[in-house]
């Protein structure tokens, strides 16, 4: 097991290096750079001398391979430098937004689990009844509905109901306050994006729960348990569900890994100042250092989540042994 984890961690190095190279060169392929962009937004005519000074200051006059080496060296030593656009340390800028995005991601995951596991189980136990059809339609709709549209609908529903109830429309707050400072305020802001993302996320997990449950319910040991007179509900909860949850854990983990990079659209709809928004801003500002750091953050989370999922899988199911 330890050897397996060690091997996976070693395999992660080329992936991370590849992602680093990809983002580094991709960003530099974009025509123009931050210096001309900054001066152009400043309004005045572009003075070649000022552009040159700006490039010198940001270290963009150095040979490209040297710049790449400095970037990799920074990654290894956890020195991400400063944002080229704001000049503030990247760690501070990211930490500010990471909290919000992570909270939405975790809340969306909880929403997804709360929806997926009961619904998937009921759907499998009552296979081919109207309950099953209803659950399946609900989950297929979840995959088909774009989460940004669901977000718009939620906002619309909030506006209409609040207007009907209080007379004036109420909107969720915009400014982020950490959960431990003001839980009510925080939740009233973040519950909506979490619902919009969580519903879509739950759809895949519901289908997985259902098919895994169906498989397990046909196993011999379930029949044996039934034959010795165990209550059906107890069989479902204790015998079937525990075994059926294995693939569900995997799918939830994989989806979570994608979620961190995929919140961009939801954050746009709800006007949240999270990682996604920072991403879009930093690419359009051609903020090389910030974009690179963000990509590395998301890719690292992705890689580690996948590893953790595989390890949890082996831990939950003793039948699985990672030999090599």
């Amino acid at each position, binding site marked *: 097991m330890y050897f397996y984890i060690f091997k996976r961690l070693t395999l992660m190095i080329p992936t991370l290096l590849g992602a680093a190279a990809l983002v580094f060169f991709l960003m530099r392929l974009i025509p123009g750079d931050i210096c001309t962009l900054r001066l152009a937004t400043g309004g005045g005519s572009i003075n070649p001398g000022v552009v040159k000074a700006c490039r010198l200051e940001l270290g963009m006059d150095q040979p490209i391979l040297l710049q790449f080496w400095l970037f990799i060296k920074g990654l290894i030593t956890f020195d991400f430098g400063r944002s080229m656009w704001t000049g503030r340390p990247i760690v501070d800028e990211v930490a500010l937004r990471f909290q919000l995005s992570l909270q939405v991601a975790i809340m969306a995951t909880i929403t997804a689990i709360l929806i997926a596991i009961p619904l998937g189980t009921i759907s499998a136990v009552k296979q081919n009844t109207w309950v099953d059809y209803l659950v399946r339609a609900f989950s297929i709709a979840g995959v088909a509905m774009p989460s*940004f549209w669901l977000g718009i609908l939620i906002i619309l529903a909030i506006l209409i109901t609040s207007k009907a109830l209080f007379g004036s429309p109420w909107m969720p707050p915009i400014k982020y306050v950490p959960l431990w400072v003001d839980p009510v305020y925080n939740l009233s802001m973040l519950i909506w994006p979490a619902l919009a993302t969580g519903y879509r996320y739950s759809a895949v997990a519901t289908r997985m729960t259902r098919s895994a449950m169906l498989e397990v319910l046909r196993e011999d040991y379930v029949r044996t348990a039934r034959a010795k007179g165990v209550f059906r509900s107890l069989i479902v909860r204790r015998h079937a569900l525990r075994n059926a949850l294995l693939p569900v854990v995997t799918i939830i983990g994989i989806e979570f890994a994608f979620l961190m990079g995929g919140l961009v659209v939801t954050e746009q709809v709800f006007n949240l100042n999270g990682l996604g928004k920072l991403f879009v801003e930093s690419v359009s500002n051609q903020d090389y250092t910030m974009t690179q750091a963000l990509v590395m953050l998301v890719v690292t989370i992705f890689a580690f989540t996948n590893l953790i999922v595989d390890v949890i899988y082996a831990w939950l199911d003793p039948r699985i042994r990672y030999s090599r």
Partner: protein
Amino acid sequence: MATISHPGDEAALGEAPLRPSRWQLLGRFCAQNPLGAGGGLVVLVMMVMAIFAEEMTRFDPTANNFGDMLTAPNLEYWLGTDQFGRDLYTRIVFGARTALLVGFVSAFAGATIGLILGVASAYFGGLFDLIFQRVMDVVMAFPLVILALAVVSIFGTGAQNVIVAITIPFIPRCARVVRSSALAVRETPFIDAARACGFSHTRIVLRHMVPNVMAPYIVMMTAAVGQAILIEASLSFLGLGVQEPTPAWGLMLRGGAQEYAESAPWVAIYPGIAISLAVFGFNLFGDALRDWLDPKLKV
């Protein structure tokens, strides 16, 4: 010419298990998969909308009409108008063209490149396979929106570049699935036989391996169309995809839809229904196709 004839021969011929005609096959598919057939119908309707868009509406999808801004649905404007006075029904019909173009082209391109790379990776194995797998890992882990942002910033916005941005992340997903099927095919004796005959690698890959992994390829491709439509809508919504005034569903939800959501909810509702229905249709159709072609395949 019938030289020997027995009584009841004709009846026996009638009973003989003939190869079912295409229509019979289609009928059987629909009877076995009512949901899949429903999905197929949605797909068909979308295709008709995309091909005959001009004939299906009286309005120009891009012409502004400031006299009729944000009109509620009525007999003239079936689904109402947007903030520029453009008929929503017309824009949704024309939007099907954009969605299908992006959906089909990027699904086809992504699945086909994935097919060739996946089969080649399984066939050659060794170092090539190892390096290829690592490259695919990188592309899989790379956030899609960032890739799209970069593609759009480098090449500019527009349908072709959206297709490029959507195709790239599809390649590794399809290559993974195809590779695992191709690994099994590689071990079969006919590949050894082909190699013993002295056929070139290209010939073995294209003539002997590729036809045997068609089922996962087709399944991945159908699954990808719905995904591609959804991603195109998301990118257009973010302003990274198709640009105004091109009619596209995601774009219709951008800007105006949120601003006027309260006073003119139809602007925000109908394009979303179009996206959901299209993806719904393609997903149902793809699921049925998977059950039919390759029940064991997990995508």
